[in-house]
């Protein structure tokens, strides 16, 4: 692997980005890396943008990722994906959840929410490693919208394996162990299914 892998997670408050970044930093630790995580913007309860940085590496100093240095983007929402595109490393890996959460500026103001075409065109200018996923649809098919974040983590795990960025120590079992430590016992089976469904969604 590279010396470090820099993950940028973005979304809107309430989407489970904080749990996802907590999982991600602990997966890094469990896989034998040094790992750090920084909650960059956390207006989670008031509908604001949420951004979090996670870094894995042999040695990790800074908890923050500088603009242009994010190797992996995990975007929970389309507008936030587009907003954070400008700080990605060209050629990086992006996993974009196709959920739309319209901000008030688009509802009561006159600003337009970007179209899918704008989104796809912009991402194509930065990298060819983009996966679009519908986490809510998959979560709904499992009967609980709240596991969409675990669906995304499952998808991310599969993409990291196929891309070879994370080395051999990073097995699905490592991810599942960390996730299961963070969900209520009655939802363990549901989360296992969600993780697996995420892996399959990008494995085609």
């Amino acid at each position, binding site marked *: 692997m590279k010396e470090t892998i820099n993950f940028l997670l973005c979304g809107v408050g309430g989407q489970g980005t904080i749990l996802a970044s907590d999982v991600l930093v602990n997966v890094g630790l469990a896989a034998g890396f040094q790992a750090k995580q920084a909650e960059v913007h956390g207006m989670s309860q008031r509908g604001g943008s949420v951004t979090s940085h996670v870094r894995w590496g042999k040695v990790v*100093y800074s908890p923050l990722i*500088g603009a242009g240095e994010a190797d992996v983007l995990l975007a929970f929402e389309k507008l936030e994906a587009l907003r954070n595109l400008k700080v990605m490393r060209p050629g990086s890996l992006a996993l974009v959840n196709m959920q739309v959460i319209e901000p008030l500026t688009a509802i009561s103001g006159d600003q337009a929410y970007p179209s899918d075409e704008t989104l796809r065109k912009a991402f194509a200018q930065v990298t060819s490693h983009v996966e679009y996923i519908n986490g809510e649809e998959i979560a709904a098919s499992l009967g609980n919208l709240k596991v969409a974040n675990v669906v995304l983590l499952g998808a991310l795990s599969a993409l990291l394996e196929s891309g070879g960025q994370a080395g051999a120590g990073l097995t699905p079992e490592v991810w599942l162990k960390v996730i299961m430590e963070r969900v209520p016992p009655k939802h363990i089976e549901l989360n296992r299914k969600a993780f697996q469904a995420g892996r399959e969604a990008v494995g085609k």
Partner: protein
Amino acid sequence: MIKMLSGNEAVARGMWEAGVAVASAYPGTPSTEILENYALFPNVYAEWAPNEKVAVDVAIGAAYAGRRGMAVMKHVGLNVAADSFMYASMTGQEGGLVIVTADDPAMHSSQNEQDNRTFAKFGRVPCLEPSDSQEAKDMVRTAFELSERFDTPVLLRLTTRICHSATAVELGERNAPAAEPKPFPRNPAKYVMVPGNAVKRHPVIEQRIRDIALFAETFPYNRLEPGGRSLGILTCGVAYQYAREVFPQASILRLGMTWPLPEKMIRKFSQSVKRLIVIEELDPFIEEAMRLMGIAVEGKSIFPITGEFDPRVVRESAITAGLLPESAHFPLPDVETGPLPGRPPVLCSGCPHRPTFYILNKLKVPVNGDIGCYTLALTAPLSAIHTCGCMGAGIGVAHGAAKAGSPEHHVAVIGDSTFFHTGIPALVNVVYNNSPVTTVILDNRITAMTGQQENPGTGRTLLGQETTRVELEPLVRALGVRHVQSVPGYDVKAIEKLLKEYIKLDEPSVLIAVEPCALLPEVRKRWIPLEVLADKCNGCTLCFRIGCPAILKSEELDEKTQRPKALIDASLCTGCEVCAEICPRDAIPFRPAEVEMEGDAS
């Protein structure tokens, strides 16, 4: 055992390991989670104080009584507590006294980005600064040991990036000092700061800070990392991490104690390298101290004095200054996304503050606001906050404007927790010096902005114990306000009627808008979403003007007006019925009474 801990969780763990006897704080981002986490340990005492000054006095009292006392606050909290901080430095104490200041470079959640290292220098108090969570934990014990050894308060300075970053921490054992409190000291020469005693204490504390400066020369957290001789970097706090990452070859002197400074160590380091720079966020604090030592050094001529650093800020500044080659630059993607709609934080759906601001906007009065969720009413469409400076400021500002002959009737808006914090003396002034200011207290029974912390109006303590609830209306009456009335927070008509009446008075008035925060767990249970009757809605857009995130534009246009009809997002709607109250066409039905009762019963 190794655990991923945020800096705040790590400080809480460090407090437990060090055996803090009394911990007091006022919630404030980025410091809030310290006491929340500390309160989860068994057999500890932790409390929310009404403000930071009280918190520091409480910690001082514990330390005078011979136990370890700690006060925790965000950077601007230390302004409120400055008086107490300064006398504590004069007296010293019997047990350890540590004050945590969580500074906020970049102002993620603050009105300024003041650098509180200056307070340490100002108060002749040592300042410790961790660079990660491990050090944040370990430095709590170190701070108490330093405090007890030198008979001084110690400032433990964190920043947002330390508080809210998670890094691996090796947990330690609890090793608390003996729990037997000593008899309370009768030592007026040391603890009664009348001028005659204080003049004798001043030389003592000047000698104390010189002694600590000598100690700093061998303080293990002042750490030399030798490297190449061409570049030497002095740094501290999280900036150390960026320095290490961007300059892997350089020699680094990482200061874990940023006041007082180890002059000999710094001098020796500066002589060992060709070019000397300081990488520190915010003020040129170390840089200026070095200049006073007569050492030639660069700092703010290279790195920004505003905002927070990250690897890019440090790298780009270094490239510009010729410290790194152009090839060190990380390119940004060449992409045009066009203008993107912003996503500023907004008042939550169902927020009980919304009706008040909807009416204030309608009445077009000047509104002197305060710090809390309700500051978010400054943005469109509510646009009803016209000043906001610091906690407790609004009432005094409104009074001053009225006394200056401002031709409009001023309304001061303040939350319940902020009223307890510093609002009460300001309202006393409005009564005492008689101005026709209308004060609105938005009483949601909780400190909501920082994430639902208990306050004196909640009826419950930080440790979860039931307690006396301080009632606002009798309190306001007792201050001498003759026109005071509590109104349900969601009652748009009652708020409008009363405000219209109050803004015509020529004496003080107080409206208390009472409704618990919609995000409280017991309130969430009562959420019942409303619906828009599409055949009745004509797209008049009135309901959009309350700025509720649960009210969306539907894709269906009204035939006549050709404007989008309203649509309610059931996943966000709490059923507060404010939109139903203002809809002129009854297109949003109130929830039926029996449903409400069912909801209440759950």
